[in-house]
């Protein structure tokens, strides 16, 4: 739809229609997700009352795969986030991408991602889920690599694709195991019978594979490194895919499968450990960055880890905290990314050491940043505050209260520092080194983050009034036996609130003294940043060298080695599957007739002669003998048509062979004795295998019903008495037509080959050298090319002329 518009050419800028079409598409871009959001909001009442909307279409009926979708409270939460933030991001992108020649491609991928993500969170069939999962990875790949002339962007895109793609494949394997254990591929039906999964002997394997998918997608340690690198994408993409929606797909998967897997020790253990490590690592690295986007990226990693940790705990408080934090994080992180993009757009830099005092210049953005920063730091009355209260409650109520509370407290500290870095420093910090303001951001750059920031604030204020049913519904989807607690902002003076306040204050203090701390932690930082990336690079390099090694082994450029590999593989595969045991013991074989033995005998002798012949002519003659003997066999066994064809073809083949091979060199024995013996052994084994196959096949031969149909209808319907010919020209006429076409193409190919002017090696050596010299000058090369083309066409002209003269002698 989008790529169809003639936009990327600057030529069409002058066309009125083109401009009009582009403005229409530009307006449609945010309107499409807006329409989806509206529709979803209209389903709100129905969903929160406990209803589940389902929808299905037959997709691959032959495999029993139906594209089925369902919408419950948890899916609706996600879908609303996806489409709602999608609306704002689209609106924002139309302004942000102004002047980018490839923006239409970006819009296209964004739109694809939007639908893929919606499909992912509503898919009921696990295959459908997987397809959408991979679609989001692919659109993410293209969006990260948007500036494809930049090598870093390309490498980041590939890294993200490889990491999440590998995880996706593992997840597919896990999903298939789950489907095998439960006998269904519908997610809802799978979740209805968790006992089947828990009793399965492969439960640990399933959990490991599924978690691999979830962890790679949601950037959990040790797969977190792709996310900061993915910041090469344009900011709207980072805001949308790499913080608010796509990276939460792994969280969605873990949450979705919790009813089935929660309680499985491996699952709980892995999720908690990965979540904790990721949350701490992300937070620890976040406040040491200087690039706005990288700060936000690491804090996103931290948030994703926190979500995983909560899902792993699985208590009432933890699940409620997970749902609240999920929503709150999407709001404030989306806002902050959009602000960062707008700042970058306005000032031309995202480096916080150079930014400061922006509040006076862009108050709208500043307000949005404050709203989001308040939520990020966990200050009331923002949604982030509510979420953090529950996170603290969850950690206090867990099995390891001291340890986890310390972890959560640390994360809160980090978040406060991040809030300071991305809000206070650029908007209120010293502005002596502020680069020149490039241009003021227009409304489309300011309103979306502002709106999102206000929404985050409103969510906190209104949660207890309107939010309860949907939170309760989402919680029920994650864990069936939890009951929702009050969502009131004021929950009395309790330990979590105290901890919150302490974190806020000490976070503020740490923010002020962060510079010395960075140098203090430098070695640890280096280890955390470098280590996983190194492993990734090393494994990539290892894969490359392994591929090189095996292609060198199997495909060394010599035809006979290729063929040997193919033959040996074929033999071992066929021999492995050939069923010689259950054959009918009494096959109705034709009795031998002595005179008929002449033909096979003739063939055997001629074959030997063809192999052993020292002269080319002898070999050709032997070939001819074989062909004619086969024709005689056709005669004996009731195939006169074949016999005639074979005779004619054999004559023509021998003729061609004589004409071509006569001009080729004499037979030379080029291979050594050793390789000849080896080849002979392989050939004899393969030939013997073909013998066995022929025998087995003819033993179990049953006259086909198709042939019977032809016999019965040939005369009555097709009015022909020669069955073979009737099949060729009538019953299977289309096949014959295709065959004749193929033959004609082969003939044309031969003509082309014969007429093509090749350079012999000695010539080409010279001309290649010449071309090397010419490489610098493209013009010359093109000229040479056109010349050679002209020469070709000229040649064919001559041929045509001579044809004409031949025709009229």
């Amino acid at each position, binding site marked *: 739809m989008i790529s169809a518009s003639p936009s990327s050419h600057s030529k069409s800028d002058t066309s009125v229609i083109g401009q009009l079409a582009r403005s229409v598409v530009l307006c449609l871009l945010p309107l499409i997700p807006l329409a989806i959001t509206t529709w979803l909001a209209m389903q709100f009442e129905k969903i929160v009352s406990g209803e589940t909307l389902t929808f299905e279409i037959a997709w691959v009926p032959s495999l029993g795969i139906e594209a089925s979708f369902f919408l419950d409270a948890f899916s609706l939460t996600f879908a609303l986030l996806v489409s709602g933030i999608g609306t704002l991001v689209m609106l924002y992108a139309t302004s942000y991408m102004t002047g980018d020649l490839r923006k239409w491609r970006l819009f296209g991928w964004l739109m694809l991602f939007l639908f893929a993500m919606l499909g992912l969170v509503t898919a009921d069939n696990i295959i459908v889920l997987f397809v959408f999962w991979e679609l989001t990875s692919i659109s993410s790949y293209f969006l990260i690599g948007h500036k494809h002339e930049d090598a870093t962007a390309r490498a980041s895109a590939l890294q993200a694709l490889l990491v999440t793609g590998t995880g996706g494949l593992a997840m597919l394997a896990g999903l298939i195991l789950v489907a095998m254990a439960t006998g269904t591929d519908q997610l809802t039906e799978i979740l209805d019978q968790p006992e089947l999964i828990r009793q399965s002997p492969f439960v640990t394997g399933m959990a490991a594979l599924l978690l691999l998918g979830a962890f790679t997608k949601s950037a959990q340690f040790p797969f977190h490194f792709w996310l900061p690198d993915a910041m090469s994408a344009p900011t709207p993409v980072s805001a949308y895919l790499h913080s608010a929606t796509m990276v939460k797909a792994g969280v969605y998967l873990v949450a979705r499968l919790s009813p089935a897997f929660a309680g499985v020790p491996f699952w709980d253990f892995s999720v908690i450990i990965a979540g904790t490590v990721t949350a701490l690592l992300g937070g620890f690295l976040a406040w040491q960055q200087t690039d706005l986007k990288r700060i936000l990226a690491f804090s996103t990693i931290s948030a994703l880890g926190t979500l995983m940790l909560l899902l792993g705990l699985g208590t009432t408080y933890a699940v409620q905290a997970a749902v609240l934090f999920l929503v709150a994080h999407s709001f404030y992180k989306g806002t902050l990314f959009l602000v960062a993009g707008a700042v970058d757009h306005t000032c031309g830099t995202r480096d916080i050491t150079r930014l400061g005092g922006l509040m006076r210049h862009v108050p709208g953005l500043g307000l949005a940043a404050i709203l989001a920063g308040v939520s990020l730091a966990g200050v009331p009355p923002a949604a982030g505050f509510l979420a953090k209260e529950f996170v603290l409650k969850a950690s206090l109520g867990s099995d390891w209260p001291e340890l986890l509370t310390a972890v959560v407290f640390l994360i809160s500290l980090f978040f406060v520092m991040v809030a300071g870095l991305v809000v206070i420093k650029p908007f209120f910090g010293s502005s002596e080194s502020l680069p020149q303001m490039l241009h003021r951001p227009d409304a489309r750059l300011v309103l979306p983050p502002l709106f999102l920031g206000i929404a985050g604030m409103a969510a906190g204020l209104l949660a207890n009034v309107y939010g309860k049913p949907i939170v309760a519904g989402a919680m029920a989807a994650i864990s069936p036996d939890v009951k929702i607690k009050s969502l009131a902002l004021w929950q009395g003076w309790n330990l979590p609130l105290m901890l919150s306040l302490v974190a806020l204050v000490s976070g503020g203090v740490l923010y002020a003294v962060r510079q010395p701390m960075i140098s203090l932690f430098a070695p640890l930082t280096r280890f955390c940043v470098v280590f996983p990336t190194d492993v990734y690079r090393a494994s990539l390099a290892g894969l490359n060298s392994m591929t090189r090694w095996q292609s060198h082994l199997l495909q060394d450029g010599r035809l006979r080695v290729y063929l040997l590999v193919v033959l040996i593989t074929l033999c071992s595969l066929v021999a492995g599957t050939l069923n010689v045991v259950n054959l009918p013991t009494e096959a109705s074989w034709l009795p031998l007739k002595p005179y008929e033995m002449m033909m096979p005998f003739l063939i055997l002798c001629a074959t030997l002669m063809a192999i052993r012949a020292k002269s080319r002519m002898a070999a050709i003659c032997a070939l001819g003998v074989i062909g004619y003997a086969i024709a005689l066999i056709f005669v004996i066994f009731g195939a006169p048509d074949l016999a005639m064809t074979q005779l004619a073809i054999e004559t023509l083949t021998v003729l061609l062979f004589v004409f071509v091979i006569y001009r080729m060199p004499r037979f030379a024995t080029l291979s050594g004795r050793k390789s000849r013996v080896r080849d002979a052994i392989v050939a004899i084994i393969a030939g013997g295998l073909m013998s066995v196959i022929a025998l087995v096949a003819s033993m179990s*031969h049953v006259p086909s019903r198709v042939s019977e149909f032809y016999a019965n209808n040939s005369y009555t319907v097709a009015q022909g008495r020669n069955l073979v010919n009737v099949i060729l020209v009538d019953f299977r006429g289309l096949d014959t037509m295709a065959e004749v076409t193929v033959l004609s193409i082969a003939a044309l190919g031969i003509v082309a080959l014969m007429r093509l002017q090749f350079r012999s090696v000695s010539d080409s050596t010279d001309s290649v050298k010449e071309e090397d010299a010419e490489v610098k000058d493209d013009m010359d090369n093109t000229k040479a090319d056109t010349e050679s083309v002209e020469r070709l066409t000229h040649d064919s002209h001559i041929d045509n002329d001579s044809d004409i003269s031949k025709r009229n002698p």
Partner: protein
Amino acid sequence: MEVVMAITVGVLYAAGFYMILRRSLVKVIIGLALLSHASNLFLFTVGGLTRNGTPLISESGVMEAEVYADPLPQALILTAIVIGFGVQAFALVLFKRVFQTVKSDDLDELTTTEQAEVTS
């Protein structure tokens, strides 16, 4: 009879495989021809052997032979024979042009591209 035919097919295949594994171009072509013969005969054997059972219907509209050969494999083989001719002709011409260009019939000398040949 089927056993004899199966052995014949096997010998033809073995010879064909052996020949396409040679280094000499000309021998590879001979091997291709042998494989083509082998495949036709293989299909014919597998399709079922019947003596004198030409699949023809008499003027009165009934099959001439009581036990008649299966016409379907025959139609298949007929096309296979003709296609085989096209393939062999193409291979012949291809090899001929290769020989003209490289001036050698040793396949091992075809392992490198033009560019690499210049540098080596």
